[in-house]
């Protein structure tokens, strides 16, 4: 029995070691490519960690210092941060309303916001493109190719998830606490500031980080709704596909840089990520 258990343990460890290699190998190769010159990439792939000795920094400086990619990076940061702030604020307000008030039809509103999440972006690509470029017009100003357009649009995809995530948390804060504060003469802002936000802080953190990540990672809509001024990093990355004779080193460098927020995020909320991403499933 003991030997069998030990055998099982060895087998599991072996399985997970192989799995980790499969997970890391493609990423490792991307790091290698991003640090090599085109000549070094020619011929049989060399898997040794050459970046320990020499890094070809030009792969990074060419797009991000000489090229347009620094603008893309700034756009991405602005869009993702603003979106995260907006989504978290609105979701907190909406969730509180759905949780504390007996609004007629609030169940249907909740379901309706959820269906917005399920919709395939490709189906909304065309109407949004037409609306942004021709219909939503204020004088000369259109939403097409603006950061504000993207920020508002990403709310459609982030708000439902944010509300879903926060609803369980705010439902979990006892109503009696709110009532006690109202008796003491507190208004709605005080309740938010003194009670809801401090108690829901971890949930709020995960919500805003996930919203940030979504806005940072989104590609399809960003690429159809922007052309020059509001391009984000993912759209910039896709530009490497169409050019002939792709400069693989630069492409790998851009991909690596656009991965950084995701890695930081993982590092920050490693412990919460299971709870955050699987909230509904565990409840279900």
């Amino acid at each position, binding site marked *: 029995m003991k030997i069998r258990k030990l055998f099982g343990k060895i087998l599991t460890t072996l399985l997970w070691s192989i799995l980790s290699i499969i997970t890391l190998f493609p990423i490792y190769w991307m790091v290698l490519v991003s640090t090599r010159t085109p000549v070094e990439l020619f011929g049989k792939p060399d898997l040794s960690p050459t970046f320990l000795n020499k890094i070809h920094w030009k792969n990074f400086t060419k797009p991000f210092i000489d090229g347009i990619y620094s603008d893309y990076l700034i756009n991405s940061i602005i869009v993702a941060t603003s979106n995260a702030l907006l989504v978290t604020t609105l979701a907190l307000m909406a969730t509180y*309303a759905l949780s504390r008030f007996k609004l007629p039809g609030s169940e249907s509103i909740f379901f309706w916001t959820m269906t917005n999440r399920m919709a395939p972006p490709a189906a909304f690509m065309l109407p949004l493109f037409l609306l942004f470029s021709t219909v939503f017009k204020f004088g000369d100003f259109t939403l097409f190719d603006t950061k504000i357009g993207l920020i508002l649009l990403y709310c459609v995809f982030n708000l439902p998830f944010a509300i879903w995530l926060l609803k369980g948390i705010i439902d979990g804060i006892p109503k009696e606490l709110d009532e006690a504060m109202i008796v003491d003469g507190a208004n709605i802002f005080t309740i938010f500031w003194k009670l809801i936000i401090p108690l829901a802080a971890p949930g709020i953190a995960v919500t805003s980080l996930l919203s940030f990540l979504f806005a940072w990672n989104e590609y399809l809509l960003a690429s159809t709704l922007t052309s020059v001024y509001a391009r984000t990093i993912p759209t910039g990355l896709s530009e490497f596909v169409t050019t002939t004779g792709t400069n693989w080193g630069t492409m*790998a460098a851009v991909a690596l840089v656009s991965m950084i927020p995701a890695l930081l995020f993982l590092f920050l909320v490693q412990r919460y990520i299971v709870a955050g991403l699987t909230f509904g499933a565990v409840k279900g």
Partner: protein
Amino acid sequence: MFSNNRTGWLLLSPTIIILLIMGLVPFFYVLYVGFFKWNPLAVDPSMQFEGFGFNYRRLIFDEVFLASIWRSIKFSVVTLFFELGLGFILALSLLSSFPLKSFFRGIHTLPLVIAPIVVGSIFKLFTVQGLGPLPHLLKDYFGYTLNYGLHAEQAFWMIVIMDIWHWTPFVTLTLLAGLSALPQDPYESAKIDGANNFQIFIYITIPMMVPVLIVVIFIRLMDSLKIVDEVWMLTGGGPGYATRFTGIHIWKEVFEKRFYGLGSAMSILYLYITIVICWLLYSVMVSRGKNED
């Protein structure tokens, strides 16, 4: 608790307004455009009404479009099968203790947060002919030629493998959360009654996990039906039509050929199919929930 609902609606209103303008208005607009023949690059760039449901009638006989839907469904089912199987095994193994467990789990979580377009880039760099190590390794050790730029089957399965690489962690972690929330009593009774591990798994674990499994299937199906980014980056929908999923097909029809009217009709049908599948699964979920109450 509050005397009137005005504050409630006031708090809810910004969310509703944004979702109306950015979610519902586009929906009705695409419904409207779908009834017209409209190509801004054609001789007559205006919108023309060609009879009720003209575009939809055309789509019913559009073999390329129908094939793309079929391809998307096939892809979703195939990836779901592998991800569920692999994810379940991994989740179960994470319940036991073994050396470096949290380290391995950390690595396993990594693909989950990487953007689809970056996953596409990673796989492109890894598998492309003349650069990636994978074709070389396969050639040297197995004598297998990998060139998904030429072979339709290879391109499709390459996308499947990429999707498994990307999304199995999600399945694993969700199932793990579900497994660790299961009540312990049934297991203890089963052990007292002398059930072996296999019987426990089939008769206790699986039935108790059904709600979680349905949620995982639901989320994964929705996501894989709308796959575009990774595929666009890796194969661009080719070779031929091999990896042209519905999203990519709409993209090509709309932004390369500028078929606005037909593209709108496609979007509506695509949305409709997604909603039907969604609704079917949702009603299964709800009816199960009711049975348990």
